[in-house]
């Protein structure tokens, strides 16, 4: 087994024992990226020089016996939505093509403090809006298991780079399923933490009340290791919660006793792929064999999840994305073009308004524009009560469903997606079909609870299938331990794709 195929936890042990250096490890990943990323397209930018320099620095620190952070020497890929000082951070958009923030996201600070090696920036749907990474303004990302298919999204690059051994660890964001769905479709582990567990400072906002940053990795232990570094209270984020961060990586190996898992029956209703249904049901049986008891539960308002989500998220997005107006930073429509156009159509619209219009029409892709329009409409006078306010009420009911469910069970078990990875272009012209990709994942964001996706099987065509576990707020420790129990009893996480 080559070094890059090992788990991050194993690599860390080798780094600590001195059997490998961070420079060697980083170099190995850079070579892998060089070899396969032309087929996958997981990265928007690979930062070879700074990565190697950082690796060398950490090796030197280790040699000198200095104290080191929790990820010392481990390469980490970062979704291109997390601000990094003086480094382009594009959010997959043309709008921010030349934008380099003058500050670090808190999680980037955390990674640097943990002595991680930042390998590069991963591809994503523009402004995290999408479920296939086809909405990136730069290039699509392909599923390493079948490069004619999509990797999921919006953290498609983050999942694909782990799955294709281009990074041992990667950081993604999840607003409606953007970590869990690509993790499921690419066969890796992805955790969406409780809202408030990880600071959002420096995460370029899509929908502020739903966005969370989380880890993607090959194994549950690796996800626990990275989560330990990402999580924590941040005075710069008013919505982050001041609760101590458990040592996830230390407790992850301890199995849970008397585990009660809830199954939502209509997760298996109409529309679910039979291969997925059977893999998830087998996973439930495995838990039973490990001593877990299974209980049927109901989330009565879950059916309204997608409708609720596709009101609240676009409403917040329409406001969050208003700042991209060409006035202060980022893309701005060409002045001569704006003036020429105004002169030509003789509109009495002023040059300022036309500059806004043109900047936003040219700088944003179709899906982003669609969601801005949806949100603007839903917040407009006369529609606010019927859409935004109603959606907020349903959101509270969904949260209540979860609260009641977690009085009866420790976790909820079920599928991540209804179907395995679909072909590139298959849903590109059907936004509704694309939105339904989030069917099983959005409710966790609406309720603010934690959710994890882990590999639980493969289709006959060899496409990965994901299993979702959801737990009550701030129960990430238990969630990871339960996931680890399953991983210990199975070998799905050990399979790697052959990239053609």
């Amino acid at each position, binding site marked *: 087994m080559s070094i890059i195929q090992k788990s991050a936890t194993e690599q860390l042990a080798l780094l600590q024992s001195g059997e490998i250096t961070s420079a060697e490890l980083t170099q190995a990943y850079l070579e892998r990226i060089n070899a396969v990323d032309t087929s996958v397209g997981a990265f928007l930018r690979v930062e070879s020089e700074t990565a190697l320099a950082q690796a060398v620095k950490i090796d030197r620190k280790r040699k000198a016996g200095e104290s080191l952070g929790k990820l010392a020497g481990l390469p980490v890929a970062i979704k291109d939505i*997390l*601000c990094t000082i003086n480094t382009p*951070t594009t*959010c997959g958009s043309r709008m*921010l093509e030349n*934008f380099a*923030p*003058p*500050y670090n*996201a808190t999680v980037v600070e955390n990674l640097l403090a943990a002595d991680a090696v930042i390998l590069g920036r991963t591809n994503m749907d523009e402004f995290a809006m999408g479920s296939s990474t086809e909405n990136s303004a730069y290039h699509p990302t392909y599923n390493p298991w079948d490069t004619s298919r999509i990797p999921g999204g919006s953290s498609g690059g983050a999942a694909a780079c782990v799955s294709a051994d281009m990074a041992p660890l990667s950081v993604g964001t999840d607003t409606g399923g953007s970590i869990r769905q690509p993790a499921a479709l690419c066969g890796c582990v992805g955790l969406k933490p409780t809202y408030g567990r990880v600071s*959002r*400072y*420096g*995460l*370029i*906002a899509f*929908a*502020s*009340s739903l966005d969370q940053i989380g880890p993607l990795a090959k194994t549950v232990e690796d996800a626990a290791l990275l989560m330990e570094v990402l999580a924590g209270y941040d*005075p*710069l*984020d*008013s*919505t982050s919660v001041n609760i101590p961060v458990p040592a996830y990586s230390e407790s992850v190996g301890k199995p849970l006793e008397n585990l009660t898992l809830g199954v939502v029956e209509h997760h298996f209703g109409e529309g679910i792929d039979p291969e997925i249904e059977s893999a998830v049901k087998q996973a439930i049986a495995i838990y039973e064999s490990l001593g877990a008891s299974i209980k049927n539960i109901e989330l009565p308002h879950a059916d309204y999840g997608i409708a609720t989500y596709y009101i609240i998220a676009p*409403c*917040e997005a*329409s*406001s969050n*994305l*208003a*700042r991209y*107006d060409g*006035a*202060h*930073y980022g893309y701005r429509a060409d002045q001569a073009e704006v003036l020429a156009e105004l002169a030509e159509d003789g509109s009495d619209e002023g040059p*300022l*308004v036309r500059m*806004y219009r043109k900047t936003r029409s040219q700088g944003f892709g179709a899906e982003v524009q669609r969601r801005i329009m949806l949100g*603007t409409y839903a*917040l*407009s*006078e006369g529609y*606010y009560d019927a859409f*935004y306010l109603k959606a907020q009420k349903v959101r509270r009911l969904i949260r209540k469903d979860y609260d009641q469910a977690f009085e009866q069970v420790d976790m909820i078990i079920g599928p991540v997606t209804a179907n395995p990875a679909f072909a590139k272009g298959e849903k590109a012209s059907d936004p509704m079909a694309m939105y339904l990709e989030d069917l099983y994942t959005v409710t966790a964001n609406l309720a603010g609870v934690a959710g994890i996706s882990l590999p639980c099987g493969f289709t006959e065509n060899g496409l990965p299938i994901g299993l979702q576990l959801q737990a009550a707020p701030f129960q990430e420790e238990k969630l990871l331990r339960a996931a680890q129990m399953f991983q210990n009893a199975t070998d799905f996480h050990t399979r790697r794709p052959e990239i053609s």
Partner: protein
Amino acid sequence: MSDAAYDIVIGLEVHVQLKTNTKLFCRCSTEFGNPPNTQTCPVCLGMPGSLPVMNSKAYFLGMKTALALNCRIPNYTKWDRKNYFYPDLPKGYQTSQFDLPMSEEGYLDIKSTKDEFEPRRVRIIRAHLEEDAGKSMHDEAAGRADSRIDLNRTGTPLLEIVSYPDMRSAVEAKAYMQELRLLLTYLDVSDCNMQEGSLRCDANVNLHIPTDDGMIATPIVEIKNMNSFRSVERGITYEAKRQYDVWKETGKVLGELPKQTRGWDDSAQVTRSQREKEESADYRYFPCPDLVPVVVTDEQIEEVRKEIVELPAMLRERLESDFGLTTYTADVIVNQGRGLVDYFLKLAAVSEDNKLAGNWVQGEVLRTLNELEITVDEFNMSPEQLAGLLKLIQSGDLDSSKAKSVFAVMLESGKSAADVVDEMGIEKVDQGELEDLCRQLIERNQRVVDDVKSGNEKAVGALIGQAKKENPNVNPGQVRQICLDIINDM
């Protein structure tokens, strides 16, 4: 305006910049007057990924002001986003408070000592916190139409105080602004500098015009850009007349035209229509998901209430009832701010005549402060020194015009009143001597005696002049009284 053909109906929206060191949602300085864009950070620049954190000091100052305005403070409030595009608003929305403001339903009492209007209680709908926008500077010279943006001000905490349309004249509106500014100054919550924009006022104005069929209301106009108390008065007066003329010409009443915004042009002394909106603005308010709601307990509210000092209205009343000052004098002293009130209180404590003390503070002291353009803190005559002077006036040793000369010398030399009187050679004239002088003068001026006897007491003034010629130290008041007494006894 009661005799005019209409009533003016005025409601004011006042924006007060709160006196915090840092901005409402970030730690940038709020200092005024620094080079453009030197007081900014990712948060107030609205850069991607940046997040706001509330400045509790601003919330405290807002609560304190609202309580002083007799507002109710709800236990739960939240932040909302007001969405609109403008280059001086880098996030594309203003963080404000919409349906659950931090305070509501208060009032401010106004009255006029010059009887310009009946005392009035102006009710306050709400006072809420929000962030200020930046400044746009448009240079339209030479057709270049360059615009520059300074974001130093962006994110400065503002308290928006919205009144009911309770005012009925421009003078009342001006008085409301002046009283509000005085209150804010006493509370020490704002610099209240209208020129620098730390106190800004928009007025909603329309007319109620009695007609044969009852009463009509003209369309409401919002007037902006009134940067002084005088502009508030003049802007509203102008606008009322304009609305009346327009109504006579067009007959358009409330509801037939969209709400118009007009700017006050101080140099031309007119209001001008600002860019007409095609449709009424829809700000798409919704709760800001980046900020948590604010919960305040009743105990916290009471703690803030304890921080409120004695306010102008209470002080005026105390100066009248406890010190016997006239309404006018109390008003003049209180309106100068707490410093002059304290000076008066100290003076009253060491002198025997409160009224005399009040008159001197309101008169000579205030005139000196204005002339020298100094504050009472910079005034170098202590209340004790001034009390020494007042004592000489009370005892009749000094008449008021001499006292003023003594006051002037005291100011310059820093000496005590007694020393100055000595140096100036002012001597008290012996009572017997004075009576002798008066008798001589009366004997020499039979005509004055006749005039006074026939009821013209003023005629005695001629004797005062002559007495002063004979002896410059005589007290004119005393001369007058003695002469009258003698003549009346004749």
